[in-house]
């Protein structure tokens, strides 16, 4: 059963045609890596899925419900779609624990005790249980990103969108974040990632989607598509990143 469905999605920034008729169907449990050059529309695509960006034509559904940018709709969507950003976007004035507990208490109206139990469990999962009372600025980039993952998980989303979440990290910190993602993939959570981590896409992903000039240019099984690209554009891209 399809969890995320995009049908002929077109998006314009003024005259600039960013997404040119995207069709994409993502099933529950899939790990989909979206790759491509900058400006190919990858991040925009991701941001359309949870209503952060408006699209002009076509349709997107998540779990059967249509996605729009209306405020109420975006908030309802937040219950099933989690998102992690390149720059973490942790709230600096809250402790790690408060960051993770915020949405469960004020959006899901959970009791403080219940939210704290969830928060501790999620931080445990990302290996940061002992940082519950620390403030974000005291953590490394990799740790901050893992807290952001825990914060998204605390809302028990059906699908997690990751927008270049290792791109702002020092190389030695990338591994710890990818390890968490790999763990999540094993647990069966649906992941859609915009990424430059080809090894991760190949070893953990269930599908690779190559975007070029606002279109899905080529997609398929990671091992096949990455070792044997069919189009010249993907060959060229692979040559550039490897």
């Amino acid at each position, binding site marked *: 059963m399809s969890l995320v469905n995009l049908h002929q999605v077109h998006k314009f920034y003024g005259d600039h045609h960013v997404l040119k008729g995207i069709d994409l169907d993502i099933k529950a449990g899939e790990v989909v890596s979206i790759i491509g050059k900058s400006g190919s529309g990858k991040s925009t695509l991701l941001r359309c899925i949870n209503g952060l960006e408006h699209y002009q034509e076509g349709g997107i559904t998540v779990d059967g419900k249509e996605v729009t940018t209306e*405020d109420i709709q975006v*908030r309802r969507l*937040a219950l099933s779609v989690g998102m992690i*950003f390149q720059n973490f*976007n942790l709230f*600096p*004035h809250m402790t790690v624990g408060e960051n993770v507990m915020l949405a469960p208490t004020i959006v899901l109206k959970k009791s403080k005790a219940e939210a704290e139990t969830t928060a501790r469990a999620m931080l445990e999962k990302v290996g940061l249980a002992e940082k519950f009372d620390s403030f974000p600025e005291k953590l490394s980039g990799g740790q901050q990103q893992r807290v952001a993952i825990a914060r998204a998980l605390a*809302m028990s989303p059906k699908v997690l969108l990751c927008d270049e979440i290792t791109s702002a990290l020092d190389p030695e910190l990338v591994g710890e974040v990818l390890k968490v993602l790999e763990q999540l993939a094993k647990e069966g959570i649906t992941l859609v990632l915009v990424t430059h981590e080809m090894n991760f896409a190949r070893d953990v992903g269930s599908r690779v989607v190559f975007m070029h000039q606002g279109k899905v240019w080529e997609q398929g099984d990671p091992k096949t598509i990455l070792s044997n690209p069919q189009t010249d554009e993907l060959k060229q891209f692979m040559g550039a990143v490897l």
Partner: protein
Amino acid sequence: MLYFSDLLQYSDVFLSGLKTTVELTVLTTILGVALGTACATIRQYGNRASQRVVSVYVELIRNTPFIVQLFFIFFGLPAIGMMLSPWEASMIALTINLGAYSTEIIRAGLASISKGQIEAAKVLGLNFRQTLTRVIFVPAFEKIYPALTSQCIIVMLGSAVISQISVQDLTYAANLVQSRNFRAFESYLVTALMYLGLSILLRFAFNALGKRLFAYRTAD
């Protein structure tokens, strides 16, 4: 020769003036910052029409003298049927004045919050009011806190003008005393020191509040 002891018999006058100034300062600081916060939020996030209204208010107040604003409210408004006591007129004038200046200061704080913070709150399902109060306000106020503190002190000092419409504040007391005993030097010197003390106290109060609000900066 200087005769500070001549002021002693008027200590009641000074104390009652001091009390009025302190009361008005506390009240107008709270109301003025609240007004400024509301207007800054509208100016930063509101629709075009409401932004326009706030801009007109802010520019009108920031480009006219405070004493004219005060006289207009106290002497002018009765012409359209709004009779206010000197104390009420002063309270309103000071609040409106601080509101306008703090709007611009607070808006700078709001503008410093990255779009990413707001998006993060949005994708977690927070509504706009929750995003403002839980996510935006604390870091925004932290950025502009010193400027806001100074503005509140400026308005407190500027409140000396309200003695002109016979509010019996600290400056009114000084005027009264020196007109009775002709000890202008002593009277105004003591008054100046009292204002200085008030400024220091107000700054101290702001710092103490800031330490609580922005505890995360100093935490380890």
